[in-house]
């Protein structure tokens, strides 16, 4: 899969990296057991600092998406390793509250809100089935 980084974006590079790996797994462009390039390699390929890549990999490991092996580098975990648990659902609720708050302020109705959420979810899950 291709990881694309916008060097001029306000979103930190490690965050962009994290998001694109999760997106890759969601769309099944990255399969469980697949190896990702080493920190050094990916940093060189993207022309970014090695610490940036290491930080993204560590975050992904903490979330259960990756395992870091001494000799194999980073490997995508099995789906059950990062299946949603109570902790994740609590974090999701918390994160959505911020978006819901802004939507409320801007007068987005409940139906519209659900529609937007559904569209985003469906768009990715369609690609997953392909």
């Amino acid at each position, binding site marked *: 899969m*291709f990881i694309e980084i916008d*060097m001029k974006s306000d979103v930190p590079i490690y965050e962009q990296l994290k998001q694109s790996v999760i997106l890759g797994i969601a769309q099944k462009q990255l399969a469980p057991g697949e190896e990702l*390039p080493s920190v050094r390699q990916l940093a060189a390929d993207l*022309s970014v600092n090695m610490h940036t890549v290491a930080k993204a990999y560590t975050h992904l490991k903490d979330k259960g998406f990756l395992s870091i092996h001494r000799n194999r580098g980073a490997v995508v975990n099995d789906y059950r390793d990062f299946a949603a648990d109570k902790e994740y659902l609590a974090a999701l609720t918390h994160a959505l509250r911020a978006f819901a708050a802004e939507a409320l302020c801007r007068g987005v109705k409940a139906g519209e809100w659900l529609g937007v959420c559904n569209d985003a979810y469906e768009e990715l899950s369609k690609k997953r089935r392909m």
Partner: protein
Amino acid sequence: MGVWPVILTILICYVPVITVFAMMPYIGRRTLTFGVSIPSGQHSHDALRSLRKSFAVSIVVSGLAACAATALMFAFLGTNLAAGLTTALLFVYIIAVFAMYVRKNKQTKQIKQDQGWQQTARETNVADTRFSSAKRSVSALWFLLYAVVIIGTLLAGILLYDQIPGRVPMQTDFEGNVTRMADKTYALVLFAPALQAFITLLFGFIYWMMLRTPPVIDPEQPEASSRQNAVFRYRWSAFVVFGGVLLLLVFSCMQLGFAQVLPRDAALYIPLVGAGLLVVAAIVLSITTGQSGSRVRVGKAVDGSVINRDDDKYWKWGSIYVNKDDPALFVEKRFGVGFTLNFGRKGAVAIGIGFLVFIIAVIVVSAVLAG
């Protein structure tokens, strides 16, 4: 003196050099012109086309002028002095070409500014997580063949030692007269294997460097450009590995020439033929593959309207890469075909210095062994 040495010199020195320089603007990536990032859709913009054309014309005209100067030197100065001056003139020509390039680089930047292309510029970097599993080099096991050739050459030198005459020719001038002889010693049979070992180290290094250089992936068409990058590396790795074997065999012939197994004429022409083959192969490969595989056809080329990866600021004079934040030691060149160092990294600077030391060591060792 005859006219043939002159024509031969001009052909050997100038034709490949002029050809390589003149075609350089035409074999690069479509997102670059004279080392300046541009939208790929603007690659055929009239202003850029005329810049490319005027560069190629200047290269050919100044190259032909240097050819003419060489011919005059051979006519009036005697062959050996003229040969020396030709080397110097070639050096001057290469510097002049670099100056022309820097000028075109500046003019391209001006066009980019006038057209407002940099306003749309993004800095998007793309990595292919599966690139290292793509087929992108011939097997490193081929280097075993190098060991076989070196050991064979050494053995040939030892076994045929009695056949080597008391003095052997080491250097000839352009007319085929021997200008330097060497005494028969045991060091003499080490000369060819030692140079072969140096060549092996050098080519092994280039092979390793090619594998380590990150691919340049165009965000506009990531799949196609990843494929092109893999093909580019695969073909050049084959060139390096088999070109190196060819060079090694040239030195094996030299060893056999010492022992008078090969006729003297053959010993004289084999290096020329070997070098000629390598140069022609490199030119053909450059034209068919292009830098980063940009001339390898993989689907339809996309005409991008924006600059997806504008990193001009890291390229001094459009040719020297200095980026402290980039961990890559090696990167693909901006102009022409090949790789260069990231001088923003200490490791790369050390490799650059080590390379110079290596070349000097080769010259010293070969001078010592050849007496």
